[in-house]
C-alpha cells in the first residue's frame, strides 16, 4: 500500500506539514478561519533536534499494535491497509498512545478520544495534505518494500 515515508535528509523543520494537517482536518474550507488564533493539534509532528528535523506520522503498520491493544475495537486496519480510529467507539483510554512505538497516535485535544493520521482519507483532501505541501520533498507518499 502507499504510505508516507520520511526523507529526513530533506526536512527543513519548517513545520508547514503540521499546519497543513491541522487545516486538512479542520473541516473548514478557509485556512485562515481554520487556524487563526487557535492552537493546532496536527496528526503529523515534526521533531527538531539541532540540525536534525523529521516529521512523524502514523506508519500504518502491517501488524498494528494499536489495533491489537484497543480496548473498544475503535481502531481497525482496513482492507486498504489504513489504520483508522472510530471516534464514536473510542472512549479515550489512550492505550493506543501508550503502545505506539512511533509516538504517532496522539491524545485528541478535546479529550475522550485519540487521534491519528488517516492519510487524509477522512477529510476532503483526497491525498495526504502534508506530503502535498512539503516544500522540499521530505515526506513522500508512495509504495515501498519492507526491509528484509
Amino acid at each position, binding site marked *: 500500500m502507499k504510505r508516507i515515508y520520511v526523507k529526513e535528509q530533506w526536512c527543513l523543520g519548517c513545520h508547514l506539514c503540521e499546519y497543513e494537517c491541522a487545516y486538512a482536518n479542520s473541516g473548514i474550507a478557509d485556512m485562515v478561519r481554520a487556524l487563526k488564533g487557535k492552537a493546532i493539534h496536527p496528526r503529523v509532528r515534526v521533531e527538531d533536534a539541532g540540525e536534525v528535523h523529521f516529521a512523524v506520522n502514523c506508519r500504518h503498520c502491517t501488524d498494528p499494535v494499536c489495533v491489537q491493544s484497543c*480496548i*473498544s475495537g475503535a481502531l481497525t486496519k482496513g482492507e486498504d491497509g489504513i489504520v483508522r480510529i472510530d471516534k464514536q467507539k473510542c472512549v479515550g483510554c*489512550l492505550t493506543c498512545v*501508550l503502545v505506539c512505538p512511533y*509516538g504517532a497516535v496522539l491524545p485528541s485535544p478535546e*479529550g475522550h478520544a485519540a487521534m491519528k493520521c488517516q492519510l487524509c482519507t477522512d477529510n476532503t483532501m483526497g491525498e495526504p495534505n502534508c506530503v502535498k505541501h512539503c516544500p522540499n520533498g521530505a515526506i513522500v507518499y508512495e509504495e515501498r518494500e519492507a*526491509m528484509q
Partner: protein
Amino acid sequence: MKRYPYVILGCSIAAVAAIEGIRSQDKKGDILVVGEEPCRAYGRPLISYYLLGETDLPRMDYRPEKFYEENNVTLRLGMRAERIDPEEKTVTLSDGEKFGYEKLLVATGSRPFDPPMEGIEHVKESFHFMTKADALALDKALSPEKRVLIVGAGLIGLKCFEGIAARVKSVAIVDLADRILPAILDETGAKMVQSALEARGAAFFLSDSVLRFEGNTAHLKSGKTAEFDLLVIAVGVRPNTELIKEAGGEVRRGIAVDECGRTNLPNIFAAGDCAESFDIASGTNRVLALLPNAAFQGRTAGINMAGGKATLKNAVAFNSIGFFGTHVMTAGVYEGEEYCERTERTYKALFTKDGLLKGFILVNLPERAGIYLKLLKERIPLGAVDFEALKTSPAWSAFSPEARAENFAREV
C-alpha cells in the same frame, strides 16, 4: 459428534484475537466459539464508560456483528464448557453436548475474587464490576440517594467509582493497601490520582478492610464504620484454570503456556486472563490480566493453532487509564535507579536498571509515551539512544539515524 478444526472456549478479547490469528493463516477451517456470557465479545473495560454514558451497548461490541459470520465462526453463547478430554480431543458443554476439536484454545478468562467478610451473605445489594451483566445490574440499582461502598481501590474499583460518582449520593472506598492503585502506582502517583478522585467525592479508607457487615453498616478493621446502600466488591480476580487442571494440564497461578501459547497438553492452547505470560520486566511467569495482553496472546495462539509461526516474547504489564481527566500510564516494574519529574499536574518516574528501562509511571503526560514502552519492550540498551534527551521528552531524535531510517523510510 461434530469435530471442528478449531474450538475456542471463551468469547472475549483473546478469542477474537485468536480468530483473527487463525484467519491470517487458514481462511476456511470452521471455528467454534463457546462463550459463557450470552453476548458477543465486548470491551470489558468499557463498562465504566457505559455507566458514565460515554458509550452504549452497541458501541461496546469489540467487533461488528458480521465479523463472526465473515470469519465462519459458529457461536455457542450462554454456554459453559464442563470438561476437556485431551485423549479423544473433545469438549463437553454444560448442556451435555460434545464437540471434537483438532486445536483447542482455552480463553476462559477470570472471575472476581471475594475475600472472606463476615455477614456478606446478608448484604442485599452486592455487586461485582467485571462484566456487562454486572454493569447493567449496577446501572439499575444506582440512584442519587444511594450510598455506595467499594471494596478495593484497584483499577476495577476506581473505574467503577468514576462510572457512578455523579449518579449516587456518596462513595466510600476501602483498600487494604496504604495507597490506591497499589499494583501500578508508587506513592507520589497514587496521591495525585487520589486527590483527583477525592475532588469528585471519593472517601478513602486505606490500610483498612471490612471485618463484617451489619445491615447497612460496614465495620472496618480500623474501628471506623461506613454506611452504604450498595456494595461493590472489586478486590481482584482469579483465573479460570479448572478445565485445564482437571484435564491434567500444568497450572501455576494461571495456565502455563510457552511463548507460542501452547499448554503442556497436546493441541491445547491457552490465552488471556486465564493464562500466564513471561513478563520481561520482572523476569517471571505471571498472569498479566490486561486487555492488550489477552489480544497479543490470543493472536499468537491462533496463528500457531493454524500452523503458522508466532511467538510472544515481549509481554509486559502496562496500563493506560484515566480518572476524570487525570491520566495515568504505567508499565513494567519499579526497580533500579529512578528518574523523576514533578509538576503540580504531572508526574514522571522512569526506572532503569542494568542499562535498560524497566518501568515507568506517567501522570498526565501521555504524549508519545509509546516510545518509552518501545524501549522497555524491546529491551533497547540505553547506551544506544540519547537517554538524557529521552528522559525529558520521548522522541525519535534520540535514536540513531539508522534506527530512524529503518522505522520511517520503509514499510513497518
